[in-house]
């Protein structure tokens, strides 16, 4: 009898504790792995894998499993994949999301359903403002912030007239609103192009020439960036009107851009040569493992994993302690590649923004380097619309 009870007790003990240790922490990572934006998703996946290497694939003593999902650059597919991750795979965290329209479509399928949602790139104004949620965090930025920093740079340079171009979707509209928020000169023209279909900008380039502005501001992410720079040069505008951009040049397309982009200026929250230990380790190890510079998409994805780890570590792997995890994430208590930052009431980072310039490094590789700090500890303009404290 005694033996039986001991046996039963140990069986229960076996079932209870080790089951928790055996179950991995599950993270669903939604990104674009196909289409012409597939290279971005690949870079994010590389960075996630590097982050997992750095933490020995363990969080709070438990194994980590990352399930990658492909949104095919389409909001409806992104939502489907998200629903699958939440309802079929029962993931503990959903992360990733390059595109604002994909994140907006998928948002309600995660928040309030159990898992935490962490955006590794997209930062639509709606989620920073009225739709903000305690279970949502961003390791990137709110869309308006980066172009707002660029608006300040344009003011400092004394640019009196500006032509603005961006794709016509959630993020494109935010980017235009952002630069118009801070730029004090005259906006002489503005074009929103069909996204992602329109790749030929001949009509818009002719309008730019006719408007003859002192500068052009663009937001053309991913494969659209080189397209624009190339046609800008073919139209003979490259040496006439300086081009300022946000998110259009990244380490994925920079080799294709090459001399077309050399010397151009952009704003960003992160630059490969930022002097923080975590960033140096990230950039050096990424280059060693993959033979190229990481992109800002990668940097944000790396931070996503580190943020999740900070929360899981804090509760010792007990994922039922959601409030403690949320409180821990809110502290941003990890070594971010962008340096120390804090979270605002809407769970978007309050962080620095830098002006960066396209250069050639010592090995003759194209990369970007910090010119100056534009904003220190900048918070997005929608935080006040968010009801969270």
């Amino acid at each position, binding site marked *: 009898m005694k033996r039986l009870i001991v046996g039963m007790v140990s069986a229960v003990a076996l079932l209870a504790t080790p089951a928790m240790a055996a179950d991995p922490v599950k993270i669903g990572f939604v990104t674009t792995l*196909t*289409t*012409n934006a*597939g*290279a971005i998703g*690949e870079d994010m996946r590389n960075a996630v894998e590097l982050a997992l290497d750095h933490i020995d694939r363990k969080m709070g003593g438990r194994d980590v499993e990352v399930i990658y999902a492909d949104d095919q650059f389409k909001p409806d597919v992104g939502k489907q994949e998200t629903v699958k991750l939440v309802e079929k795979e029962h993931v503990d965290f959903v992360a990733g999301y390059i595109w604002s329209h994909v994140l907006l479509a998928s948002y309600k399928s995660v928040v309030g359903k159990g898992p935490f949602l962490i955006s590794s790139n997209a930062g639509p104004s709606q989620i920073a403002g009225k739709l903000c949620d305690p279970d949502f965090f961003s390791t990137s930025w709110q869309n308006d912030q980066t172009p707002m920093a660029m608006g300040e740079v344009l003011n400092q340079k004394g640019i009196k007239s500006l032509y603005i171009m961006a794709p*016509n979707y959630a993020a494109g509209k935010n980017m235009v609103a952002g630069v118009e928020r801070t730029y004090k000169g005259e906006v002489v023209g*503005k*074009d*929103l*192009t*069909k996204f992602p*279909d*329109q*790749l*030929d900008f*001949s*009509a*818009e380039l*002719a*309008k730019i*020439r*006719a408007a003859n502005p002192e500068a052009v501001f663009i937001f053309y992410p991913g*494969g659209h960036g*080189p*397209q624009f720079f*190339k*046609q800008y040069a*073919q*139209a*003979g505008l490259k040496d006439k009107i300086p081009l300022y951009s946000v998110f259009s040049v990244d380490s*994925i397309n920079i080799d*294709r851009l090459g001399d077309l982009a050399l010397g151009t200026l952009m704003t960003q929250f992160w630059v490969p040569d930022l002097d923080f230990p975590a960033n140096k380790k990230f950039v050096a190890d990424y280059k060693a493992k993959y033979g190229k510079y990481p992109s800002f998409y990668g940097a944000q994805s790396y931070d996503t994993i580190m943020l999740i780890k900070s929360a899981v570590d804090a509760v010792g792997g007990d994922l039922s302690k959601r409030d403690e995890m949320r409180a821990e994430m809110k502290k941003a208590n990890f070594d971010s590649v962008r340096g120390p930052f804090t979270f605002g009431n809407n769970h978007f980072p309050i962080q620095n923004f830098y002006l960066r310039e396209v250069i050639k490094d010592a090995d003759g590789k194209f990369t970007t380097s910090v010119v100056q700090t534009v904003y220190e500890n900048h918070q997005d303009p929608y935080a006040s619309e968010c009801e969270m404290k």
Partner: protein
Amino acid sequence: MNWLLLFEQILNGIQLGLLLFLLAAGLTLIFGIMDLVNLAHGSLYMMGAYFAYSFAGWTDSFVIGVLLALPATLLLGIVVEVVALRTLYDRNHLDQVLATFGLILFFNELVRIIWGPAGLDLPLPDFLNTSVEILPGIPYPTYRLAVIAVGLLVALFLYLLVARTRIGMLIRAGASNREMVGALGVDIKLLYTIVFGLGAALAGLAGMMAAPILTVEVGMGERILIDTFVVIVIGGIGSIRGAFLAALIIGLIDTVGRSILPDLLNLMLPQAAASTAAPALSSMLTYVLMALVLAIRPAGLFPPRGA
């Protein structure tokens, strides 16, 4: 309105129109003569661009690259026709759509395996990578002028081929009445293979012409295929003349519309409404036109005679 700007936009429109024509000419013939709905036409456009990229890389010359890529796409078209499409002629359109959609997936994956997922650039030779001052103060990219020239030459070639040669006669006859052509003892199989190969080469040429302006990438064909279908519906299925005129109309409406619509709306609507409506409306213009044509002249503006 700035007249110089309008002139430049018209040139841009013609350039886009001629590019669409290269695609539409083949598609409309295949649809009109072979009664085959070929969704994979865009894949041939993509393959043309990739062939040109590789051949130009090997030979270090853009022109030789294009000259080699042209027969390569023609050959590919013939192989696709013989291997995959022959069995589909007697099936209904839905089966054809399904099968040719399968071809799209096949080619996209093939390209990914061979050339990789990242977009590629087909660099222009120096003599094309400049701009010409077509009017005082209006420099225009030389390459876009070259595209216009090639488009017009192909149109002329097709006109002569269709109107003046025996093959052309058979093509015209096929577009008007397929059964009768077969009944008269013409080798329909061979005619179909020729037509499909020709269509493939034209689509490939369009891909090669577009490649230096755009990016050589997976899925580039699907984007332009929709516009091409709009063109052949507006022009009248099976009609090369219709495809030519409709392609120019679509090119002009798309480009000029995109360029002047915001200003027009600004005159009529409050600023905020105009700036949201303009991009939405300008990307719909061509579809609005297609709906109008379908409502008023369902057979298209220039249907082939006898159809």
